[in-house]
């Protein structure tokens, strides 16, 4: 078990190295000369050359990549070209809202989607199934910011149940924090719910045909027990997989959701960085989110062996 986890962790290193190489190339081929930007308008070509040599920008690609990677491993993501602040500091400042949004969405989506998929599989072929799956197709098709505006319009502007926009830090109390996150989480969760519900249904349908389900039924076990104890546990591997893969949707969607609901998180930082062409910040964010995504899927991989002891590597 430990050896297996160790192997999986080692296997993520080349993946992250390729992500890093890719992200570094982005800055390398980025238009504009950082040395000229730093030197300013009045600088002579000699000054620019001096700064370039000072920053090591005249060195070959691989040598710069090695240097850059070494700094990243030490937690130094470079300096923002616009604000002059360390990228790490900028990211840490904006981390809480984004992390809150993603965690709330994840919990909300899983608690809605899994029972939804189980229900659809149990009632397969009926109008319940059709209705739930129609909702799933809709969830895939309506873009996250459309759902966001719709929810904000109905539940915040018209009904006034929730705040329209903004974010309250967790330190200001749990309920105010949650109140601000409900609508964004539903908006962001829609695609995710649709994805998980579909896979749950497919996986459950497969399992419900097994002999041991019939055995459980014939010994008089309750329907709920059969569905959630016998069936769901055996259907769990594809579900957990898709929950891991779907985190990519959450990350991409968070950027947009934050802009709809004016949440000052990493999404806002990303958009500001794009507008200002602040490449080190963009690099830092892409690297961070990719690392989160890879780690989530690493956890999923480890979970397989816990969920299904038959899986051995």
């Amino acid at each position, binding site marked *: 078990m430990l050896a297996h986890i160790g192997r999986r962790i080692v296997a993520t290193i080349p993946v992250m190295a390729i992500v890093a190489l890719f992200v570094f190339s982005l800055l390398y081929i980025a238009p504009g000369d950082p040395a000229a930007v730093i030197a300013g308008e009045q600088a002579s070509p000699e000054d620019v050359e001096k700064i370039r040599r000072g920053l090591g920008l005249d060195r070959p690609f691989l040598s710069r990549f090695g240097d850059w990677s070494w700094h990243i491993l030490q937690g130094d993501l470079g300096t923002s070209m616009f604000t002059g602040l360390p990228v790490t500091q900028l990211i840490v400042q904006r981390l809480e809202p984004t992390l809150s949004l993603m965690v709330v969405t994840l919990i909300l989506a899983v608690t809605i989607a899994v029972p939804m998929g189980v229900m659809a599989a149990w009632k397969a072929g009926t109008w319940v199934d059709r209705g739930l799956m129609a909702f799933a197709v809709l969830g895939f098709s309506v873009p996250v910011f459309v759902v966001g*505006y719709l929810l904000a319009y109905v539940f915040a502007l018209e009904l006034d149940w929730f705040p329209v926009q903004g974010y309250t830090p967790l330190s200001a109390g749990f309920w105010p924090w949650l109140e601000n996150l409900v609508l964004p989480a539903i908006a962001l969760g829609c695609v995710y719910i649709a994805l998980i519900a579909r896979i749950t249904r497919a996986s459950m349908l497969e399992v419900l045909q097994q002999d041991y389900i019939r055995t459980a039924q014939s010994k008089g076990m309750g329907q709920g027990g059969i569905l959630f104890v016998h069936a769901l546990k055996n259907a769990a591997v594809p579900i957990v997989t898709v929950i891991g893969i779907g985190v990519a949707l959450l990350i991409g969607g968070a950027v947009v959701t934050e802009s709809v609901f004016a949440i000052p998180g990493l999404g806002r930082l990303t958009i500001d960085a794009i507008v200002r062409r602040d490449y080190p910040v963009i690099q830092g964010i892409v690297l961070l989110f990719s690392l989160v995504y890879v780690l989530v899927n690493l956890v999923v991989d480890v979970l397989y062996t816990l969920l299904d002891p038959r899986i051995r590597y």
Partner: protein
Amino acid sequence: MSAQSSSLASTVAIPSNVAVEPAMPDVLPPIKVRRGFAGFVYRHPTIAFGAALLIAMLSIAVLAPYLGTVDPTALSPAKRTRSPSAEFWFGTDMLGRDVYSRVMYGARVSLAVGFSVAILASLAGLAIGLISGFVRWADGVIMRIMDGMMSIPPILLAVALMALTRASVSNVVTAITVAEFPRVARLVRGVVLSLREQPYVDAAVAAGTRSPMIILRHILPNTLAPMTVQATYICASAMIVEAILSFIGAGTPPNVPSWGNIMAEGRALWQVKPFIVFFPAAFLSLTVLAVNLLGDGLRDMLDPRMAKRL
């Protein structure tokens, strides 16, 4: 059951010396075979509905100039932020441009981006997937690179690429294609690896068929079905990503009316003039829905074993 017993009863009532045509017990209802176009629609309602909706959107895109539209970029500051009326069906935006005209012309950008990305990503993915599945020594390296690219969430990758270049429709297409094609490559590689083990491929090898011919005759036709399904999903996803990129200001240039741009411009006013955001949003959602339904229907049609599962 009741139909059967009633037909038996009528048989018994006839005297045995009278020759009559024996009544067929109608246990099996007659199978009505539906052929032609109507039959296709009956058997694949999702494809029919998705295709009809998509054709409607394509017609809007092609016929945009003839649908009672005006120049989508014409400014008339005196008539800005009008609510929907007989003159301006979808109202006007903050610069006085006709939202109806802009939404109709916006269909062009969304569909063009969706289809271009679907085709380009499929071709790139097919090429890389075939190489990876056939050239064993390249497989490890190629798949590690694909894994790395797939570890960057697609929207973020597209955003990062767009930050490097000028805003233009072709750059948007390139950025989304780069973000999407590794998934196709992975799919094609998987299909190729399983096909290589098939007896008919062994037979072709034994018969001395050259590799290019095996790929063309045996491998390629079998990758088409899963690839078509994947391509429709990529098309749907590309249209959403284009709208998201434009919405956050990293996509189609602002002077081109695309659904994402119209929404981005309506964003500042959405609390007072929500229609500017809602009309393009509705069209975008319907188009994506059409493509998704088409994809679901195609998947069920091309792989009946999976039908009704997902």
